[in-house]
C-alpha cells in the first residue's frame, strides 16, 4: 500500500527492524489465539475417543475413527445434500427475485414504487427473533414443516431486502444512455435486464451469493424448528445425534462440527477477497 513508502527506508535502522519483528510476533500470537477454538474442534475430532475433550490443541494419537464413526449414524451425506439443495435453491431465488425487483424499481418506476421499495428496504432491520413465532405459524398453515420449501422460502425472504438494496445500488450506477439505446433498438425489458444490467452487476451477484450462502448454510434455529424429521435435517443439526444428557459423545459431536466447518473454511480461504468485500459492502481493497 501507499502508506509504506515512508517506512521502507526506516527498515534499515536497527530499531525499526526490531519493531517490525515485534509486530510479526504480536500478529502471530493474536492469529494463534484466534485459531484456538477451531484447533480445539479439529483436534478433538481427530483424537482417540475417550481421551477427554478440549485439553489439547493438536490431535492426540491422530485417528479418523470419530469422523468415519460419525458419518453413518448422523447421516452426514444426506444432511450435506439437504443443506446444499436448500442453500442453492434459496440463493437462486434471492438473486432472481432481488435483481428483478431492483430492475423494476430503477428502470420501470410505477406510482407508489418508492414507498414499496422503502418498506421492503426497512425490513433489513428485522431481527429474526422478533418474527420467529408468527413465521413458524405461517409455515404450519402452508404445511411447510419438514419440507424443503419450509426453509428455502424463509431464508430467501430473510436475505431478500439486503439483496434488493445491493442490486439497486449497482443498477443505479448503470449509465442511462446504455439502457435507453437498447430500448430504442427495440429490445424487450427482460432482454435489457439480462443483456445489460445483469452482466454489469456481476460483482454484486457474487456478493449476494456469498451473503445468502452464509445465511442459509449457517442457520441453526429455523432449521431446528422446521426440520424435526431426521432425514430432512441440515448440516447444522448433525451434532444432535451425538448429544444427549446421559451419553454425550463429544468426539463424534466435534467430528460432525469439523466435517461441516472445514468445507466452509476452505471455500472462504479460496474466495476470501470476495467474502470480505461482500460482507463490508465492497469497501475493502487489497
Amino acid at each position: 500500500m501507499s502508506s509504506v513508502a515512508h517506512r521502507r527506508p526506516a527498515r534499515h535502522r536497527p530499531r525499526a527492524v526490531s519493531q517490525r519483528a515485534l509486530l510479526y510476533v504480536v500478529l502471530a500470537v493474536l492469529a494463534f489465539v484466534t485459531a484456538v477454538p477451531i484447533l480445539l474442534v479439529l483436534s478433538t475430532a481427530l483424537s482417540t475417543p475417550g481421551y477427554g475433550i478440549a485439553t489439547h490443541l493438536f490431535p492426540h494419537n491422530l485417528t479418523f475413527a470419530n469422523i468415519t464413526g460419525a458419518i453413518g449414524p448422523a447421516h452426514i451425506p444426506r444432511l450435506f445434500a439437504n443443506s446444499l439443495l436448500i442453500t442453492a435453491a434459496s440463493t437462486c431465488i434471492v438473486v432472481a427475485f432481488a435483481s428483478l425487483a431492483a430492475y423494476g424499481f430503477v428502470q420501470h418506476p410505477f406510482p407508489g414504487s418508492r414507498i414499496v421499495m422503502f418498506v421492503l428496504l426497512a425490513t433489513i432491520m428485522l431481527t429474526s427473533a422478533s418474527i420467529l413465532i408468527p413465521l413458524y405459524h405461517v409455515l404450519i398453515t402452508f404445511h411447510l414443516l419438514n419440507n424443503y420449501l419450509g426453509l428455502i422460502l424463509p431464508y430467501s425472504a430473510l436475505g431478500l431486502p439486503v439483496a434488493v438494496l445491493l442490486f439497486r445500488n449497482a443498477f443505479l450506477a448503470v449509465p442511462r444512455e446504455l439502457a435507453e439505446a437498447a430500448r430504442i433498438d427495440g429490445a424487450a425489458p427482460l432482454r435489457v435486464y439480462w443483456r445489460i444490467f445483469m452482466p454489469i452487476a456481476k460483482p454484486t451477484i457474487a456478493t449476494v451469493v456469498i451473503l445468502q450462502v452464509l445465511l442459509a448454510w449457517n442457520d441453526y434455529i429455523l432449521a431446528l424448528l422446521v426440520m424435526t424429521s431426521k432425514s430432512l435435517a441440515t448440516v447444522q443439526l448433525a451434532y444432535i445425534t451425538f448429544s444427549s444428557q446421559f451419553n454425550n459423545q463429544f468426539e463424534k459431536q466435534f467430528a460432525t462440527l469439523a466435517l461441516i466447518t472445514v468445507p466452509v473454511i476452505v471455500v472462504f480461504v479460496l474466495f476470501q477477497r470476495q467474502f470480505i468485500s461482500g460482507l463490508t459492502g465492497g469497501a475493502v481493497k487489497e
Partner: protein
Amino acid sequence: MSSIVRRSLAPTLQSVRIAESTVGRSRRERRRQLQGVAFVAPAVALALVFLAYPVLKTIQWSFYNWNGVDPHMTWVGIDNFRTLLTGADPYFGRAVKNTALWSVIGVPIQLGAGLTLALLLNRNLRFRITFRTLFFIPVVLSPVVIGLAWQAMYFPGTGILNTFLGALGFNSHWAWLDNPKTAIYASLAANLWRYTGLTMVFFLAALQMIPQSLYEAARVDGASDWTQIKRITLPLLRPMIALLALLGSIGALKEFDMMYVLTGGGPAHNTDLIGLQVFNQGFQLYHVGYASAIASLLLLVTFALAALQLGYLARTYRSVR
C-alpha cells in the same frame, strides 16, 4: 397554391402528430409501469408472506394472552407491556441488563480490538492478507460451531482455558459458563471472538480512505506515531466508529442463536438476552402473547436505532459534501 395549403395545414398536422405521440407515449408509459409491477411482484409477495405478515401478527398477538395452540385468544390490552415495562418480570429485567451490558461493555472492546488489528495490518507487511484472512475466519463460522467450540474452551478442569490457567499456577477448576459471576463475561468473550474480524475489515476499509499526504505533512512537522493516530486517524475514523457502534448495539439486540447453543440463557437466567427471552417464552413456555410483546419492543428499539443510524449517516455525508 400548394404551398399555401401546406402552410395553412402545417400547424394542424403538427398538433395531430403531437397528440398522437402523447397518446402513444402515455400508453407506452403505462405499459412500462405495469412491467415494473410485474418485476417487483415476486419479491414483494415473498416479503409480504414471510416478513410483513409475521411482523403484523407479532404486534397483534402482543395484546393477547395466548399459548399459540388454543383456538381461543384472550384480549389483555396493554397488560403484557405493563408487565415488561414496570419491571414486574425479573427475568426480563435481567435480559435487558445483559443486553445493555452486551453493548455497553462488549461494543467498545470489540471496536478497540478491531481498530488495533486494523492499525497493525494497515501497512506493507509480508503475510498481510494471510493475517487478515485468519482474523476473519470466525465471521463465516456457524453459531452452532462457535457455541460448542467455546463450551469446550471453558470446560472446568479439562478445558483449554483452565489447562492454561492451571499451567500458570491458577485455579483450574473454575466453571466459567456455569458460574453466575463469570457466565455473561465468558459469553461476551465468545461474541468478541466471533465479530472482531468483521470490525477489523471495516476499519481497514476506512483507514485506506485517509489520504497519505496528511501523515506525510504531520511527519514533516515531527509528529510521533501516537500523535498521528490521535490527531489524524481517530478524528477521520469517527463516522466509521459511530456506524460500527450502532451496528454492534443492533447486533446485541439481535443476538440469540450462538447464545442458545452456548448457554441457553443459563445458569438461572444469568446470560439471558432479549432475543433469547422471545424464543424461550414463545417456544418453550408457550407464552406466545407475552413473547410477542417482547418481540414488539425489540422491533421498536431496533427500528429506532436504525433510524438514528440513517440520520447520522445522512448528516455525515452532508457535512462531507
